[in-house]
């Protein structure tokens, strides 16, 4: 049976790959022939900064415990207290963690330099860390498995190419990237169905993710008027307009409310 499966599998894969794989190829070509805009450098002397915080009001939702008993290797990593879902994390200072803040529009048409250092996404205790990351399009993401268990990494993009790969216990790190801007790409592990993270892919370097203090800083902006968006996995995204002059610093706050 296995042999029949294998043969039929190969035949159908060959047939199907003909139609299935065309899309990314032509997409790659499209990208290659796109008119190259002048590479931009960040003009530090005149650059503006936008900082702010993501405030949270209303009743702080209680997050549910995650039951890792299906995989003892995961449960052991949390022998103290069971881990909680990270869907909504409200910081002690009343701010919201894991909010992706980015410049949605208003930037001049330029090619911003892509950092050569990758952003790390770690699997530890069968949770992703950090829960939300931001990268530039074509910037590498280094995926690390620190767990003594198998993971599969399965991003669910709508614009970029979807993929699904396994990573054995303490296996080699993976370098992955996404070619197009997409806010946000959910990532899941089907071995451990509670694992969930989000990747924001942006064409420029003007983005930030709120941490334990709920603040964000976007530096190096050319003077101009921008729309900033704050994205959270549970609550509706919020947009704010901001105008900054050369060397100016402005503060923008996003008020999120419990739903």
């Amino acid at each position, binding site marked *: 049976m296995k042999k029949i499966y294998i043969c039929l599998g190969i035949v159908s894969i060959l047939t199907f790959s003909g139609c299935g794989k065309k899309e990314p190829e032509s997409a790659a070509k499209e990208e290659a022939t796109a008119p190259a805009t002048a590479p931009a450098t960040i003009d530090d002397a005149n650059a503006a900064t936008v900082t702010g915080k993501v405030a949270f009001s209303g009743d702080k939702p209680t997050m549910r415990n995650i039951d890792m008993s299906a995989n003892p290797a995961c449960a052991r990593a949390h022998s103290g207290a069971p881990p909680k879902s990270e869907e909504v994390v409200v910081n002690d200072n009343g701010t919201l963690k894991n909010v992706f803040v980015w410049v949605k529009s208003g930037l001049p048409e330029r090619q911003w330099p892509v950092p050569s250092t990758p952003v790390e996404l770690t699997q530890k205790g069968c949770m992703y860390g950090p829960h939300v990351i931001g990268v530039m399009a074509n910037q590498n993401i280094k995926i690390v498995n620190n767990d003594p268990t198998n993971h599969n990494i399965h991003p669910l993009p709508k614009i970029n190419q979807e993929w699904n790969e396994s990573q054995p216990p303490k296996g080699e790190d993976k370098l992955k990237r996404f070619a197009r801007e997409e806010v946000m790409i959910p990532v899941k*592990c089907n071995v451990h169905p509670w694992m969930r993270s989000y990747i924001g892919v942006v064409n420029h370097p003007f983005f930030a993710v709120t941490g334990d203090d709920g603040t964000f800083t976007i530096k190096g902006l050319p003077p101009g008027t921008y729309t900033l968006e704050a994205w959270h996995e549970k609550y509706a995204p919020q947009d704010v307009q901001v105008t900054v002059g050369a060397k100016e610093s402005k503060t923008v706050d996003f008020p999120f409310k419990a739903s």
Partner: protein
Amino acid sequence: MKNVWLHRYVVLWAFCTLFLVVAGGLVTSHDAGLSVPDWPLSYGKLMPTMEGNIFYEHGHRMVATTVGLLTIFMAVWLWRAEDRRWMQNLGWIALLAVTAQGVLGGLTVIFLLPRPVSIGHACLAQLFFSTTVAISVFSSPSWKRGSIMVDDDGAPPLHWLAIGAPLCVFIQLALGAAARHQAIGILPHVAGAVVATGMVLWFTVRVLMRHADYDSLRRSALALVSVTFLQVFLGIAAYMSRLATAEAPQPMPVMVGFTVAHVAVGALTMAASVVLSIQVFRNVRRPMPAMQTARIAIPF
């Protein structure tokens, strides 16, 4: 007598297939389909570590391989031991179906669960299970004792209902699979439940009112009507458990239990409707136009 063991074997095969349907339902409900990214091997091996959801996905593949082997053996046995040509052919058809099913399963993994493939895999699983049950009926000793030939001149002809009811149940399964794999909402499936249950009631009540004296017809009709009611109850429970656990960070046992039971009893509903139809086609004489006196051939 020589075929008693063949019949027992076929029944065992059908039970294994029902178990396989349960194993498949567990894969979908746990969202485990992609926990093993490669196929035909699993993590490059025949036997990966059975941890987390890999247990469901790889377990499903193992049960499927077993059922595949059982099907090959069954087809060969029918071919060697069966006198009825159409039965031999049915064995080959079952083998073809299980092979296609395995390929669909592999493709859905490799192409990251495209909806049409997952839905096709879910529907073909149901049809395949019905085929195993049909072969069990055809190979049974009671089948070999011959048919009873009763008359039924009701309107619409009972044979129409015998085609309509399994057809409605099948459409209902397909709508359920489309809803389960998020291709459509749940409304068509709930509306379909009214139609399918109505058809089943019409069919079974008609058989029970007119032909309850005949064991094979009465039993098949009772089985179909009870399993359908159970299925409607499980459908409501599956729906409510989905709603109740929508906020949970992972698939919850209540939801998994009810949805998998609904998939499995769905397979039983389909099979029961096929069995009653088979019994009707075999045992109920088709109403003949008044002038026609020639005997018509009855299938099976």
